[in-house]
C-alpha cells in the first residue's frame, strides 16, 4: 500500500481532486468542453399518473462511452432508457441524439437499437433471420444483408447457429443473438436493458468482458441499465447512480467508489462503515469529527463547503482499515475494539469489530503470508487505524 504513510505535513488542497487508486484511462470526453455529447437528456420528466418515475434529469453521454445507469429496481433507470428508445414519451423535457431533437420520433425512426432484458428474439425466425431483421426493414439488398449478418455472427462467435431457431439455443447463445441483432444495423447508440440478468454468475462475468470487447471493436456508444453494481463497475466508463427518479452521482467507477458524494452512493457501491458525527473544527484542510462523548476524535480530509458544527458521516471502506493486535505507533484515527466475527475467505479475511460504544465495524485483511505467528481470532482485543486521507466525509 503506497498511501500508508500519512503526510500530514502537506495538507491536501480542498479544491484539488482526490487522488484515487482506481485505474484511469486517457478516455474522458466529458472533461473536454470542445466535445459535443451524442445523447443529451434535457430536464426530462416522466410521470405515470401520480407516480413520478423520472424527476428532471439532465445528462450528457459522449460518443464511444460505455455508460451505466445504476440503481435499485423502480429507480427510473429503465424508464430513462425506454424514453431514449422511443417506447415512452417524456412528460416534459427533450432528448437529443447528435444534436437532433428526437423526442417526438417513433421507435422505428430513431438511430438507436436496444437489447432487451428478455432478449425478445423472434421465436418463428432463425438466428440469421433474427439478426437480419433490422437490415430487411431498411430495404438493404439481400446479398449485402447476408454479408453483414455473417460479419456480425463471426464477431459474436455464432457461426454454427445461423439456421437454428431461438428455442434451440442455450441462454448464453440467445444473449449473443440478441446483442448481434442490436448491433447489426450499426446504430450510433446501443441500449442494453439488464442484458446479462438472466445468466448465471460465472457466465455473466465472461459476458461482461465480451460486451466490453464488442463495444471497443465496434466503436459504438453503449448505454447499459443494471442493478448489479459490480457489473456497472466492470464495464462502464461512467456510472450514473439513480435513486427515486434522480441522479445521485454521475462519475467514473473509480470516483464513485473512492469519492462517493453521499451515504446512498457509498452504501450502494461496495461495503462501507459509516460513523455519524459533528465537525468541531477545520484546520489545514482537515476536519476534526466528534462522534460521541468520551471517544477519540477522527481526523479526515474536509469536503468542500464544509463548515463547523455540521452533521457529517465518515465513510470508511473495510479494506482501508488496518487491523492489528498491537497498538500502532501512528495514533491518529486509532480506535480499540473487540473481534466478534471472523470470515476467512482464503485470499482475504473479514473481521467484524465491536467498538466501545457498541458500533460494529467491518475491516478487511489480505492474507499475504501463508503462516502467521498469531492470527486474529474471536474475542481478540484489536486496534483499528486509518490515515486521514482514506476516510470520506459525507454531508448527506
Amino acid at each position: 500500500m503506497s498511501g500508508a504513510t500519512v503526510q500530514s505535513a502537506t495538507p491536501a488542497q480542498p479544491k484539488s481532486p482526490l487522488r484515487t487508486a482506481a485505474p484511469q484511462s486517457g478516455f474522458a470526453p466529458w472533461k473536454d468542453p470542445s466535445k459535443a455529447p451524442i445523447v443529451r437528456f434535457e430536464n426530462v420528466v416522466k410521470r405515470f399518473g401520480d407516480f413520478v418515475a423520472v424527476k428532471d434529469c439532465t445528462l450528457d453521454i459522449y460518443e464511444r462511452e460505455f455508460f451505466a445507469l445504476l440503481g435499485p429496481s423502480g429507480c427510473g433507470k429503465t424508464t430513462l432508457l425506454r424514453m431514449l428508445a422511443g417506447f415512452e414519451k417524456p412528460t416534459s423535457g427533450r432528448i437529443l441524439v447528435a444534436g437532433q431533437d428526437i423526442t417526438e420520433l417513433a421507435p422505428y425512426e430513431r438511430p438507436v437499437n436496444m437489447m432487451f432484458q428478455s432478449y425478445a428474439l423472434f421465436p418463428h425466425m432463425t438466428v440469421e433471420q433474427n439478426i437480419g431483421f433490422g437490415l430487411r426493414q431498411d430495404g438493404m439488398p439481400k446479398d449485402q444483408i447476408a454479408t453483414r449478418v455473417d460479419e456480425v455472427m463471426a464477431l459474436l462467435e455464432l457461426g454454427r447457429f445461423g439456421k437454428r431457431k431461438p428455442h434451440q439455443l442455450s441462454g448464453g447463445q440467445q444473449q449473443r443473438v440478441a446483442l448481434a441483432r442490436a448491433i447489426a444495423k450499426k446504430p450510433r447508440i446501443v441500449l442494453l436493458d439488464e442484458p446479462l440478468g438472466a445468466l448465471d454468475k460465472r457466465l455473466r462475468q465472461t459476458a461482461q468482458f465480451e460486451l466490453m470487447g464488442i463495444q471497443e471493436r465496434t466503436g459504438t456508444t453503449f448505454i447499459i441499465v443494471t442493478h448489479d453494481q459490480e457489473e456497472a463497475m466492470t464495464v462502464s466508463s461512467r456510472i450514473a447512480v439513480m435513486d427515486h427518479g434522480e441522479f445521485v452521482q454521475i462519475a467514473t467507477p473509480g470516483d464513485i467508489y473512492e469519492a462517493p458524494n453521499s451515504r446512498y452512493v457509498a452504501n450502494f457501491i461496495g461495503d462501507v462503515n459509516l460513523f455519524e458525527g459533528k465537525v468541531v473544527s477545520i484546520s489545514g484542510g482537515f476536519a476534526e469529527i466528534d462522534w460521541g462523548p468520551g471517544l477519540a476524535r477522527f481526523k479526515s480530509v474536509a469536503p468542500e463547503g464544509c463548515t463547523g458544527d455540521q452533521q457529517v458521516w465518515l465513510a470508511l471502506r473495510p479494506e482501508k482499515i488496518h487491523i492489528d493486535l498491537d497498538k500502532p505507533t501512528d495514533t491518529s484515527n486509532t480506535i480499540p475494539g473487540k473481534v466478534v466475527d471472523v470470515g476467512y475467505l482464503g485470499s482475504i479475511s473479514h473481521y467484524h469489530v465491536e467498538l466501545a460504544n457498541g458500533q460494529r465495524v467491518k475491516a478487511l485483511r489480505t492474507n499475504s503470508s501463508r503462516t502467521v505467528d498469531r492470527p486474529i481470532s474471536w474475542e481478540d482485543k484489536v486496534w483499528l487505524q486509518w490515515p486521514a486521507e482514506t476516510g470520506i466525509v459525507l454531508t448527506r
Partner: protein
Amino acid sequence: MRRFSWFNATSIALGFAFLYIPILLLVIYSFNDSKLVTVWGGWSTRWYGELLQNEGILNAAWVTLRVAIVSSTLATILGTMAAIVLVRMGRFPGRTLFSGLIFAPLVMPEVITGLSMLLLFVAMNLDRGFWTVVIAHATFSMCFAAVVVQARLYDFDKSVEEAAMDLGATPLDTFRQVTLPIIAPSVISAWLLSFTLSLDDLVIASFATGPGATTLPMKIYSQVRLGVTPEINAVSTIMIGLVTIGVLVASYSTKRASERQEREMKAVDAGAK
C-alpha cells in the same frame, strides 16, 4: 399410475354412454336399409345416395357452408382486432365496457341475440337472406374468436413487438412480420371454432334468414317436424363428422402451439440457470 377401480370405470362408461349413445344410434341408423327410421333393415349406404338426389338438402348444405366460411372469416378478423385492442392498448376510457360488450354474447341466450338481430335488420330495412345470416353469425362467433386470440396474446412477450419496432419496422410491418406469425395457431383455431359454431347454429339463423337462404340445421328441423326420414340421419352423420374434424383440428393446433411455447419458455429458463 392410479390403480384401476371399478367405481371409476363404471362412472366413465356411464358418462360416455349418456353422451354418445344417441349420436351412435343416429350414425348407425343412417346406414339402415329400411324406409322406417325405427326399424332395422340391414346395412346400406342407400340414404347417402338418396341424399345426393335431394336438391333441397344439398342447397341448404351449400348455403350453410358458404355462410360458415364467410362469417367465420369475418368473425376471426374482428375478433383478432378486438383481442389486440384489449390486450395491447393498455387502459383507455371505456375499456371495461368494451370488453364487457365483446364477451356478453358468450352468455347471452341465443334467442335474444337472434331476436335483436331481426329487429335491427327490420329497422334498417335490410332484405333478409344470405348476408344477414352471415352478419348475425359473425357477430356471435366474433366473441369466441376474441377469447381464443386474447388468451394467446396475454402469454406473448410484448417486448418482441417492441424489438421489431426498435429495429425499424413500422407498426403495420411489426404486425405482419412478427405478431401475426406468432399468434397464427390461435387465429386458425379461432376460425375453426367460428366455423363449427356457424355450421350448427339453428336459433340465430332462423331469426336472421329470409327466403332463399335456408341453412342445413333449419332444413333438418323443418323436415323433422314432418317426421324423421333416414336421409336426415345421413346428413346429420356428415355434419357430426365435419364438426368433429373442425374441433379436433382446432384443439390439436392450440395444444401444439402451447406445447411449442412451453418448450421455448423452458429453453429460456434453462439459459437463465
